[in-house]
């Protein structure tokens, strides 16, 4: 791996390489360059995950044509696919060294071992949503219970915007969550559940289920479950698997033919809680 990266840097395949290196006893993201080639020997696969692709987008903001190499776990690759699709990175300018993020249970679905939240306390288990639950268990709660549990979770929100900031596929120049008309500035708790719903809706066709948001949440809100639901609906409705479907983004009319003819509306499946 190290030799490959060195070779790429030397022959100009890439200008920089994003990987990890130990700094002050912490494994940190590190940008390797041709100028300091021997540092590549210190390249390591960090047990901690950072969104290297987000750093890459910041780099291309400065230098649009820079060629970037990076270590890519499965989640990084999925994020890259999404960023290519939404025109935020040019796939021609990105090279990856794919790493197997072992130990990984279901790598293909991104359900890797990093994504096993800590066991939650008894109180949260009683009144909130256990981060370790499977989506179907959460959906099994009855209507009022669902509402109570989710609102308990959302009300904890301290509006740190960490979920958005850490998100590898959040790239908007100005975030709707900062638009006063949608989410009022000032009040804490944020407009429940508008803040989280808006974010959930914007995750459609973007969320690659990396779990970084949940890991970054100081209040342990089970965001992954929420966005898993988003992904599931996107899959059901648009037949689109975010991060692995590399064709058109789901919210595009191109999937249907572009015409202005009124089309018969296909009956969609009945909403389960009606």
């Amino acid at each position, binding site marked *: 791996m190290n030799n490959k990266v060195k070779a790429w840097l030397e022959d100009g395949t890439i*200008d*920089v390489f*994003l990987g990890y290196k130990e*700094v*002050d006893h*912490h*494994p*940190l*993201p*590190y*940008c390797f*360059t041709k100028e300091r080639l021997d540092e590549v020997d210190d390249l390591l696969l960090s047990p*901690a*995950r*950072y969104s290297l692709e987000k*750093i890459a987008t*910041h*780099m291309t*903001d*400065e*230098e649009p044509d*820079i060629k970037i190499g990076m270590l890519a776990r499965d989640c990084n690759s999925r994020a890259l696919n999404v960023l290519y699709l939404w025109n935020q990175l040019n796939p021609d300018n990105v090279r990856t060294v794919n790493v197997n993020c072992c130990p990984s249970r279901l790598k293909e679905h991104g359900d890797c071992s990093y994504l096993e939240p800590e066991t939650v306390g008894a109180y949260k288990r009683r009144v909130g949503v256990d981060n370790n639950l499977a989506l179907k268990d959460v959906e099994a709660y009855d209507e009022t219970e669902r509402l109570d549990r989710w609102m308990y979770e959302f009300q904890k929100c*301290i*509006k*740190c*915007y*960490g979920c958005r*900031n*850490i998100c590898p596929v959040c790239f908007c120049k100005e975030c709707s969550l900062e638009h006063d008309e949608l989410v009022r500035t000032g009040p804490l708790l944020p407009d429940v559940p508008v803040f989280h719903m808006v974010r959930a809706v914007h995750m459609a066709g973007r969320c690659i289920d990396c779990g970084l948001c949940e*890991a*970054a*949440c*100081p209040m342990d809100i089970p965001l992954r479950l929420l966005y898993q639901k988003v992904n599931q609906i996107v899959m059901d409705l648009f037949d689109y698997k975010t991060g692995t479907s590399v064709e058109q983004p789901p919210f595009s009319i191109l999937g249907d033919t572009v015409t202005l003819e009124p089309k018969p509306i296909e009956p969609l499946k009945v909403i389960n809680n009606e």
Partner: protein
Amino acid sequence: MECKLVPSVCSYCGTGCGVLFEVINGKIVSTLPMKTHPVNEGKLCIKGWNLHEHVNSFMRLKQPLVKTFGRFIKTDWDEAIQLTADRFREIIEKYGPDSIGVLVSAKITNEENYLAQKFARAAIGTNNVDHCARL
């Protein structure tokens, strides 16, 4: 292209969360929580997340200003320090040292904070010292 990820400690409060500054071509573009930091374990509050903003803020003071005739006028450090010392002395002479309080900030280092309280107690002679992040 120069891209560095610089580890640091959040300066907002006394908790001491580990942060990473993403520095591209000499400019801090973003703050990240340090995943392996024992204090915050990859989490931050809204202030920590926006640490880089006050560095880059256009409102940031980069040189001392003196308020003359109701307006702030740019000045140099020597004059500013001299002016401040003169005014402190005037106040102490007139109202006594306890009329002065020192409020220090989380945005400076521990050592600077130590110096600040030393300054308050030894130089000014007051016990009225406090810190914005007194948790």
